[in-house]
Each structure stands twice: as C-alpha cells, then as structure tokens.
C-alpha cells in the first residue's frame, strides 16, 4: 500500500513538472514574441522602407526566442509520455 501511494505520488510530481515546463516555457515565449512582434510592427509603421531588413532581424530573434520553449515542450511531452 505504501509503495502504491509513493508511485502515484511520483507520477503526480512528474506530471506537475511536465506541466510547469510546458506552461512556463509558453509564458516566456509569449511575452518575448509579443514584445518582439509589437516592436517590429512599430518599426514597420514608422519606416515602411525598412521592412525587408526588419523582417530578417525579426525572424532571427524569433528563432532565438522560440528555441527554448520548443525544447521545453518536447522535454515536457517526453516526460509525460515516454519517460
């Protein structure tokens, strides 16, 4: 009986951990890409002739911001379903 409770507890902690990974990663990326996209639009509205250059930079930074949450999502899903 003790063992079953401990196993269920370990399972619950695992799922909580995976949920935290998915959720907090998404929060960070949401804020980051939101700010980034807003500034991109601001810049594009001020100087439309710079849009191609800004878009390139936008995508570079978006890739940098986007990397960690995507990794967190994969690790969280791995934790939930495979580990």
């Amino acid at each position, binding site marked *: 009986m003790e063992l079953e409770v401990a196993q269920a507890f370990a399972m619950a902690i695992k799922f909580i951990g995976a949920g935290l990974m998915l959720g907090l990663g998404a929060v960070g990326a949401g804020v980051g890409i939101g700010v980034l996209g807003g500034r991109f639009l601001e810049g594009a509205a001020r100087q439309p002739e710079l849009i191609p250059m800004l878009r*390139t930079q936008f995508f*570079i930074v978006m*890739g940098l911001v*986007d990397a960690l949450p*995507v990794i967190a999502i*994969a690790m969280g*899903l791995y934790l939930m*379903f*495979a580990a």
Partner: protein
Amino acid sequence: MSSSATLTSQEYIQHHLTNLTFGHLPGHGWGFAHNSADAAAMGVWAVNVDTLFFSLLLGGLFAWFFKKVADNVTAGVPGPAQNFVEWVVEFVDENVRGSFSGKNPMVAPLALTIFCWILLMNIMDLIPVDLLPWLAGMVGVSHLRVVPTTDPNTTFGMALMVFGLVLYYSFKIKGVGGFVGELALQPFGKWGMPANLLLEGISLISKPVSLALRLFGNMYAGEMIFILIAIMYGGGVVLGATAGVLQFVWAVFHILIITLQAFIFMVLTIVYLDMAHQEHH
C-alpha cells in the same frame, strides 16, 4: 508499425529515439547495438551509422547538385536549376555582406554549405516518421533515425567546427596577445582580471554549446511531436484521422522552424566569425 504485436507507446518512442549504432560491445565483439543500453556500453568509439549515412548522403547531394549547376552555368537565359542556385547563393551572399565586415573569402562558402546542409538534414523531418524506419525494417535494419540533426553528435560536430574556426581566426587576426588580452582585460580593466576571464570564458564557451543545443533541441522537439502524434494512429479510426490532420498541421508549421533554424545557425556562424575578425583598439 513494428514487427512485434504488443508494443507499448513507451517502447515505440524509445525505439524511434534509438540510433543504429555500430561499435565494439565488450564480450560480444563488433556489431550493431540491439538497444540503447548496448549502445551506451559501447563507449566512445561507437558510430551512429544512420546519422553518418544520411548526413553524408545529403551533403553529397548538395555538393553534387551545386557543382553540376556551376559546371553548366550559362550567361544567357538560365534554366530553373541555375535560377534556383543563383537565388540561394545570392541570399547567402547578401547575409554575409550584411553581417560580416572583415575580409575573408572562406566565410560565404562556409555559410552556404552550413545553410544548405542543415536545411537538407532538417527537411528529412518532413518525411513521415514511420516510413523510412519501416522500409529499413523490411530489409533487416532494426533501428533508424532519419533526421541527422536530431542526433546531438551532428550538431555538436558542426558547432565545434565553427568554434575551431572562431579560435583560429581570433588568434590569426588579433594575435595571441590580442586575443588573450581581449579575454582577460575586457569589461573591468586589468585589476578585474579574474572576473574578466570568468565572464569572457563563459561567453566564449557558450557560443558553440548554444549553437549546437538550439538546433538539436528544435529538431528533437519537432520529431518528438511527430512521434507522439503517430502514437494516435493506434487508437482507432477517429483518432487515426485526427492524427493524420495533426501530422499535416505540425508539418506545415515545422517548415518554418526547419528553415529558421538552418538560417539562424548560418547567421550566428557569420556573426561569431565576424567577432573573431574584429580588432579592438
């Protein structure tokens, strides 16, 4: 889709995440690993045959195609292949011109190779996850990971190559004294040398590590999600159809990530090499 009828989802995932590893197993001699524990027991000299095969195949494909187009190049009306290659080369060239201020004829070809090679390796992710392992299983290959960039060995290999070039050009352009001085004297002056060394050392080491882990993590995550969706195929008609739609949606979204990560690897390579070429006064 594997041969054994009772395959749990965990086993399915583990099977998909195991490389076809060739090496020397203590007590068994040379051969292919049957599971990940075997592969771990083989130690450093084990070789991931599938990673090597696909990365070399795609690298060869890239080199062959670009060489063929370059040999048949015409100043008149270009064919579609030449148009495409010119477009790619121009795209890379533009980026190198934009971010690289030094003089080095090696950087643009390096950037082109990195971009095209990584892009090709990432595109392997868009092939349905079970197709190639299933075909390989029919001819007796037990494990197969199709996307070379989901193997950290590939990404760390490329990132360490770039890191080696960064070190080489740092020493060459700035001289030993200049480079060491940059590491030791930069933010806080000569009295803060230990702190300088620590900070600059960390930022130097973090370059290849972040470069490799970013690409690996993104590709691994993408493949992981493909695999997890593929598990749903086992759940009947409704779930299977949903999974088909989900696979398609994720594949479309993944096209962005694939291109973006290849592009970012290229841009960061150029930026790091540019930093190595800048002389501080």
